[in-house]
């Protein structure tokens, strides 16, 4: 068990910078998820922590010791790979005990550790099978078992669920969370799936173009995104961005979306955005759940307007609606009983208490 620290870590391939100076502090016992689109440098970062890639610049510390030049086997880490990487000629038990056997642990201890891990992962009856006799989910459990028996300082997961089908992925996600609750080993987990990131992590690190966009708890990222990238990456369906600017009408600060559509800002928001130049090109960020059907007695800060729906998508517990505002498509979530139909006029309400205002050029959330 140990904390992991990254200081100004850089990875250069010839003339390409895959990772451009990352600072990250991962506390002992913490479950941190690195998330981002493919090519954002998240896997490279993980592989640098593992020691499978050299670092071009900066420092990586595990348990307070700089491990830049320490080979992987001496870093006391365990890694679970996307494609499982089980040794095909060994049984499940042999796969799990390989690391311990290399370190010449006593046979009795190896057996007790393998048994314990197998029990924890519910693969006791599989220990004598070869990997090819296992299903994808079982193989992934064995791969996790191989990590658990080593009892390392840090677990590294490299997109471990990407090869599983959707249903199994949800199940294994819960398994991984349960395992972490039991063993409490510091974990760094890489995924491109924001749902996985949100559900598993104590803290999520959102990466893009080799940089960290934002670090925060799942709720912080969802409700207080720092940049347009984070705002659009976290949450499904994604946050809507509508071009707008600020305007003072009758002494009150309004956000103007179209020539005919402008909403007064609630007092808290008005105070926050008072200093923004009125000429600045801005984006109004609204999550779909903050665009719903208009109700007879709206709460303060909720403003209604009329529109014509393009498409409706009934999901059962809710209906997703899509309409066009100033050329951009906007998604909202309404009650399935709200009588929303394709092509029909509809009265919607936006909850401006949960609005975000972004600089259109820099993408920074104001």
């Amino acid at each position, binding site marked *: 068990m140990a904390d992991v620290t990254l200081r100004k870590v850089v990875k250069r391939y010839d003339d390409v910078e895959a990772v451009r100076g990352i600072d990250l502090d991962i506390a002992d016992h913490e479950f941190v998820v690195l998330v981002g689109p493919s090519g954002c440098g998240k896997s490279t970062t993980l592989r640098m922590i*593992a*020691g*499978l890639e050299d670092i071009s610049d900066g420092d990586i510390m595990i348990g307070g010791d700089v491990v830049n030049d320490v*080979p*992987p*086997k001496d870093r006391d*880490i*365990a*890694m679970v*790979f*996307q*494609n*499982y*990487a*089980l*040794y*095909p*000629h060994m049984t499940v038990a042999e796969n799990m005990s*390989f*690391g311990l056997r*290399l*370190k010449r642990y006593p046979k009795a201890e190896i057996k007790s550790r393998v048994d314990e891990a197998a029990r924890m992962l519910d693969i006791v009856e599989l220990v004598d099978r*070869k*990997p*090819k*006799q*296992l299903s*994808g989910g079982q*193989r992934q459990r064995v791969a996790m078992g*191989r990590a658990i028996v*080593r009892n390392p300082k840090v677990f590294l997961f490299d997109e471990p669920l990407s*090869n599983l089908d959707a249903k199994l992925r949800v199940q294994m996600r819960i398994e991984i969370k349960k395992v972490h609750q039991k063993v409490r080993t510091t974990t760094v987990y890489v995924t491109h799936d924001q749902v996985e990131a949100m559900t598993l992590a104590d803290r999520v690190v959102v990466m893009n173009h080799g940089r960290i966009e934002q670090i925060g708890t799942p709720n912080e990222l969802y409700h207080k995104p720092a940049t347009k990238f984070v705002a659009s990456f976290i949450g499904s369906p994604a946050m809507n961005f509508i071009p707008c600017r600020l305007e003072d009408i009758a002494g009150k600060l309004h956000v103007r979306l179209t020539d005919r559509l402008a909403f007064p800002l609630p007092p808290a928001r008005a105070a926050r955005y008072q200093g923004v130049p009125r000429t600045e090109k801005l984006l109004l960020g609204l999550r779909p759940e903050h665009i719903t059907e208009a109700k007879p007695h709206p709460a303060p800060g909720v403003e209604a307007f009329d529109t014509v729906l393009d498409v409706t998508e009934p999901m059962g517990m809710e209906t997703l609606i899509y309409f066009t505002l100033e050329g951009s498509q906007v998604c909202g979530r309404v009650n399935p009983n709200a009588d929303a139909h394709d092509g029909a006029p509809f009265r919607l309400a936006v909850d401006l208490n949960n609005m975000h205002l972004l600089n259109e050029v820099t993408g920074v959330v104001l």
Partner: protein
Amino acid sequence: MTTVTIDKAGPTRKAKYGSMSRDRAWALRWSYFFLVIFAIFFLTPPIYMFITSLKSSAEISAATNPWWVFHPTLENYTALLTSNQFLRFFWNSAIVSIFVVTITMLISVPAAFALSRMRFWGSATLATGVFLTYLIPETLLFIPLFKMFAVIGDWTGIQLINRWYVLLILYPTLTVPFCTWIMIGYFASIPKELDEAAIIDGASWFQTLTRIFIPVALPGLIAATIFAFTVSWAQFLYPLVFTTSTDQLVMPVGIITTLIKGDVFNWGQIMTGALLGAAPPLIIYAFLMDYYIAGLTAGATKG
């Protein structure tokens, strides 16, 4: 309109489907036809050798049907199998082949592992270089090599020419490059994550090779072993050039130098010797083919 299209499409598709299966039937007939021709073509010589090996010299030279044995005899077999000379050739061949296979594997497996997995400066060029070496035929090399060994003998007094163990130096020049190349191919097909997992599990490079790569690439290893054995067992030019005393000869050269006396060909014994000489590779094929199962990596990663 729609119905018309469907009516039109119906019969066309059916006819096409019929013709496809007819194509397949014809393709099968042609494959059988050519396979049978090839089988006859390749099996005729050994059958003829076998028939001849059962004949006495008198019957071979008699003007009877050469494809039939009228007075079968095992005299050729007993003559060869009781001849110390022939057993010596057999023994030399066996020793040389076993040593060469061992030497080849000891060199080419680690070499292939290094070239395919340890990225070092010039490794790609070296891999290509290894393959190019294999392309140079021994007919170009035997004269310079002979000269080299002669010079070495003059300078150091170590006499290598006309010693069977000179073949242990010569044969690997043929087998090592090719086996290295085969093994590079097999090792390259092992997923990168497998050695990364082993390294994280604490394995050294050597342990990764012996505990993971060799077991996983066993089919490739067997293919390379068979190749190395076949090459050393059948090699003719180098032993013909480099060994001359009858006690140093390997079988292929031994048979032709001792059983052809001037213009007298002892056909019965030549054929018997050739058949007996072909037996070990056949036995080895038959034995190792059972282990030569593809898809040993199944289950390592997402298939």
